């Protein structure tokens, strides 16, 4: 059975493309904001991992992950961002809030490998 992955990005094109690229391997659930993401996680309790954009209207990626992690501490979280690494992101990495961070434009092989690695670590 395909693992469920939640992808959060305010750009619908990114959501569409992510679905197109990784949809064959994983069951991709998408959300356009942090709030939306939290709702989706509740709707799909078998979700194994979350990949979130950093900059979004309302909550940013890390704020969303922070909230999600309190409710769903057992799943892994990634950031996929157009920014270079920021102090907030490196803190999140150090604290273990997120597993990894990826740079846009996305490298699907890198992301796939990371997901696989995270799943196997469980």
């Amino acid at each position, binding site marked *: 059975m395909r693992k469920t992955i939640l992808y959060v990005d305010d*750009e619908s*094109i*990114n959501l569409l*493309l*992510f679905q*197109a*690229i990784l949809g*064959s391997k994983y069951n991709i659930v998408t959300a356009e904001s942090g709030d939306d993401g939290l709702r989706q996680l509740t709707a799909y309790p078998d979700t194994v991992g979350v990949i979130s954009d*950093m*900059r979004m209207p309302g909550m940013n990626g890390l704020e969303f992950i922070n909230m999600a992690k309190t409710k769903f501490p057992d799943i892994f979280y990634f950031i996929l*961002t*157009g*920014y*270079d690494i920021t*102090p907030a992101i490196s803190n999140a990495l150090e604290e273990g809030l997120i597993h990894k961070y990826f*740079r*846009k*434009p*996305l490298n*699907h092989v890198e992301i796939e490998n990371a997901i696989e690695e995270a799943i196997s670590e469980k």
Partner: protein
Amino acid sequence: MKNDSTSKHKSVYKIPWGNLFSLKKFENSDYSLKQKARFLYFLSFALIGLLILVISYTGYIQIINPLYGEIFFPVLVAPILLVFIFITCLVLIRKGYYTVAVHTILISTIATTYSAMWYSHGEPFSRLNTIVFVLGVLSLLPLLLKNYNVISFLYIFLNIIILIAFVTVKSDELSLSDSAIFDYLGDTSFALMFIGLTGYFIFRINKRSMDQAVSDFNERLAAEKALAKSEIKFSTLVDNMNEAVMIVDNENRIQYVNKKFTELMGYTSEEIIGVIGFNLLSDPSEKEIVINAEYNRKVNNINQYEVSFLSKNGMKINFLVSAAPAFDSEGNAEVSIIAMADITERKKAEQALRQSEQRYKTILAAFPDIIMLSDLKGNIIFGNEALERITGIAPEDYSNPDRKAHIHPDDLPLVISTFQELLKSDKPYSGIIENRFIDSWGNTHWFSGTISKIELNNQIVLQTISRDITEKKQIEIELAKYRDHLELLVNERTEELEATNEELLSTNEELNNQRQELEDALMHLQIAQNKLIQSEKMASLGVLAAGVAHEINNPLNFIKGGAIALESFLNDNLHDHAANINPLLDSIKVGVNRASAIVTSLNHYSHRGEIEISDCDIHSIIDNCLVFLNNEIKSEITIEKSYTSIPFSVRCNDGRLHQVFLNILLNSAQAIKDAGDIKIQTRIEKGRVFITILDSGCGIKSEILSKITDPFFTTKDPGEGAGLGLSISYNILRDYEGTLEFESEVGVGTKVIISLPVTKT
């Protein structure tokens, strides 16, 4: 006197009878003769008158006498004869024959008297008595004779003899006793001799007194002449003196002034004589000075003082006065002789000098910079107020070689070499030197000044003029701080720019137009960046880059994601067309990767203070880079390394330094077309490490040398480089207080000099 005599002369000619009483012939005779002639002349007149009276009287008596009843002429012969004799005398005197006249009168009178005695038939008593006329005439001898000598006595003796002869011959007629005759003769002779002697002595005494008077008079005349001569000498001398001279009496009344005095003061002698000297003083209070001076002259024997007088036309004249009293024969001070030298010009010069000195002192005191004179041993000869105020060097420290204030030891060689050059040089002053100076309280000052050499009392003296520029120096440091602050300001600005860019890019919605839009955006960005660079320099670029990167990475994500999705879709569904489609998809991917690489490298601008800093080893970083670049460096290129043996390290981010050296070494390698060499040298100097990378490549044209660190400046073909390498390197080095400099010559090569502060050696 002369005028008087002339007027008398005139009156003589005008009035006829006047002529009768003046004796022209004796006008030039000596005084006594003149008087004698006048006496005789007027006596003759008087006697003529008297004789006429006698003749008339005698005639009258004879007429009224009943005895005669008529004039008896023989009695009248004598007086009438005498009248004629005296008239003759008058004529003789008028003609100038004085002596002849005198003797005529004498002889004729005596002869007449004796004739009368001889021929008279009267009483013996009256005949003898007649002798008194002779006595009377003879008593006139000293009045009449010019020289009372033998002739006088001859008259006396002659008369005595005639008298004796008369008495002897006529003794019978006289019928006198012998004793009476002897008595008469004795008495009369005695009278005659007595008259002779008396006359002689009167004459002699008169003559002697007169001679004495004349000689006294002549002596006095000679003395007066001598005095007049000396007075002329004296007055010529005094008049020609260069000093004004005045003589004042004991009431200070002016008695005399010389020519110089009248010239200087403008008064004539007539105007000034009699004036009280004090009234000439320009300042009445100076009267005290004069009175004190008089006192000093008497008591202390000082007789010079200065006073100022007011000339007639109101000019003030300063005099140096020397005064001396002149004493009369009894030793009392009678007048004061006052010599006065005009020192007005000298006074003015003195005052001008004093004023000029005062001005100079005022300027020196008020001058804000230090002015100092010192000898070659470092002793201060003179310093103005600023010297003590700024450095604390008080006059008592001037010759103290151990005084606290001193030139900063680091700047001492500069100052000493300036001194030495100045002493050798022909120029009298040095160029401007800046040096530090430690004052008496231990504070450090920055001075900017010049040193001049001047000759003072045949000795070379150094004159230093220094300005305290400590504040200016501090402001320079402040300015550097402000420059850093500016970067913060720039950060704020760039946030605004970020917003602008967001707007710019929000329109990029359609997938198909993304690339075009991307390029447009990049172009806008470039323009915006260029503007930004011009105004705000590099610092702003970092924040801009960070903001923009995100926005560009998203559309890149669309393209790349789209391409990946498309590729997997095509591979799954249109496998047969893969050969045709894959190159197209690959070109999309290459494009995205290249754009992404640019955006990523832009991120280097944004890193500031967030990156780990450690002690980096420059040598190993360079070596690493050379290994990385192994493929890029052609085999014909030789690398020469000459590293310093001094161990050192720099505080930097290791990765960013790698990037710097990679960029520079890559540029060097690419500059060499075929074969060549790259020389890498490191050295430590003044707390910094200098890394020189010299290539023998194509070089950089001088007109673009200044632009090579500008972002997006490149000489490479499109796609081979974004033109960010050196710009990023420059910014990285700047973050660590490093510098990056280029020297280049086209066709010879390029020298890159990097310097960084060394933290550990």
